[in-house]
């Protein structure tokens, strides 16, 4: 009980108060404290990377072992990861054969540029097709609110591209659509975003205080 509850609560309280107070104390000691704490935290973050890699590989090993539907795709995770690790380590990234196919001279760069960048960009670009299809099929002016949202979206979509300035030019004022878009962004959009942001910030402050003062203890985990 002492190790699982009391010590963590004391640590969180002391460090929480110190980190909070540090913000308002412009003294070399305070800066040294910040540096030390963030150094520790960054070291823990570094281990977090290993933990993430382990977790990913462990999940895919389980999938392959249980032969879950689509388990063969998990094999590609290992092929990709091992391939890039080997290319990265072999001859300091230069790889087994010279000259490498990449102008920067390493097989690792070739793998990154030709496989990761190309595949990731292609996967993301497919979103444009899904978004277009989804917007076309579902964006309906079913009531006044939806109609207003639709009108705002269409104006912003039009005003954000350069053809709007050509059309505006025909009307005698090239930037007219851009000005309408900026008005939408500066007033209704900003009002709504500010409300949401303030709500989130106040919620975060309240939750932090609850954790520092030991009212919120769910982070300690359940059970004994």
């Amino acid at each position, binding site marked *: 009980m002492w190790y699982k509850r009391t010590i963590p609560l004391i640590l969180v309280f002391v460090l929480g108060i110190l980190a909070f107070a540090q*913000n308002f104390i412009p003294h070399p000691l305070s*800066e*040294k404290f*910040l*540096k030390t704490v*963030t*150094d520790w*935290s*960054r070291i*823990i*973050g*570094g281990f*977090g*990377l290993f933990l993430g890699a382990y977790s990913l590989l462990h999940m895919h090993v389980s999938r392959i072992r249980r032969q879950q539907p689509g388990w063969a795709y998990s094999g590609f995770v290992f092929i990709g990861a091992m391939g890039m690790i080997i290319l990265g380590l072999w001859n300091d990234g230069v790889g087994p054969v010279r000259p490498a196919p990449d102008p*920067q001279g390493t097989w690792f*760069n070739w793998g*990154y*540029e030709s496989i*990761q*960048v190309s595949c*990731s*960009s292609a*996967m*993301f*670009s497919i979103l*444009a*097709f899904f978004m*277009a*299809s989804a*917007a*076309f*099929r579902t*964006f*309906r*002016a079913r009531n006044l609110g939806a109609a207003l949202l*639709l009108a705002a979206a*269409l104006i912003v*979509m*039009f005003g*954000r*591209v*350069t*053809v709007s*300035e*050509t059309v505006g*030019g025909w009307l005698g004022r*090239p*930037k007219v659509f*851009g000005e309408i878009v*900026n008005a939408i*962004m*500066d007033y209704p*959009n*900003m009002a709504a*975003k*500010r409300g949401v*942001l303030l709500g989130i910030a106040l919620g975060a402050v309240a939750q932090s205080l609850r954790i520092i003062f030991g009212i919120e203890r769910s982070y300690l985990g359940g059970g004994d």
Partner: protein
Amino acid sequence: MATHQDSLKRLTFTRQIVYVLVATSIILPFLIKGISLPFEAEPGAETFYKQLDRLPPGSHVLMSFDYDPPSKAELYPMTVALLRHCFEKDVIPIVMTNWPSGLGLFEKACGDVAAEFADKGDKKVSGTDYVFLGYRPSMSDLILNMGVDIKGAFTTDYYKQPTAAMPALEGVKSLRDIDLAVALAAGNTVELWMAYGSDRFGFPLAAGTTAIGAPKLYPFLNSGQLVGLLGGLRGAADYEKLIERPDIATSGMVALSGAHILLIVLILGANIWYVVGRITGREGS
């Protein structure tokens, strides 16, 4: 009466037509030579440009490129345009990232732009005219750490050169010594740079983001927490226009306009069909 199978077939067919139209609207403008649409830079891009342009030679601009290949289309042109502007002004870019999967892109951007200037007889040397610090883990903690000691947070640069005596980092101890910081982000790192960086250590921060991420940053532009904002490919094209170096983003403006116009026409058409259907009581409207 239409069966469920018929509805599915119709839906699939409609979707395929939309896909073909979207692909055509994007690809066609790149194939037809000589099409261009004149445009002026937007206010957010202009203020961004002025912030960097006013810096005297030798100033330090911290550039945090926090994106990866999926956002390359929108943010890489911004990266290149910003580096070109820095090199043109003899300002020293200090490049870093919080996203390890983008490292190769940023190394290439720095190398390519430096080579471009070398071809013009203005050689830019890593460690002297620019620094590529690379990646370190723990985003918010890293920013706080840099607020006290940048060279401690990055003891070496990406090429394993010690930063302690690096000429490019002369006079830079912490984030307080940075003349301007730029965060190009596909995620939420702009907010982290504000909360843990610029608001706390008092340096001006400008941001560039994907088009979908720009609206959420407008409040910060208005409050002065951001001194400039570039949104999506249009933002990159604006910056290319401002530095008078039209490139890939500018050439993409016609395709972007085509895709947007197509989508507007499709949505409007579908809504007219929907409203007419409701008035006439047509099935499936």
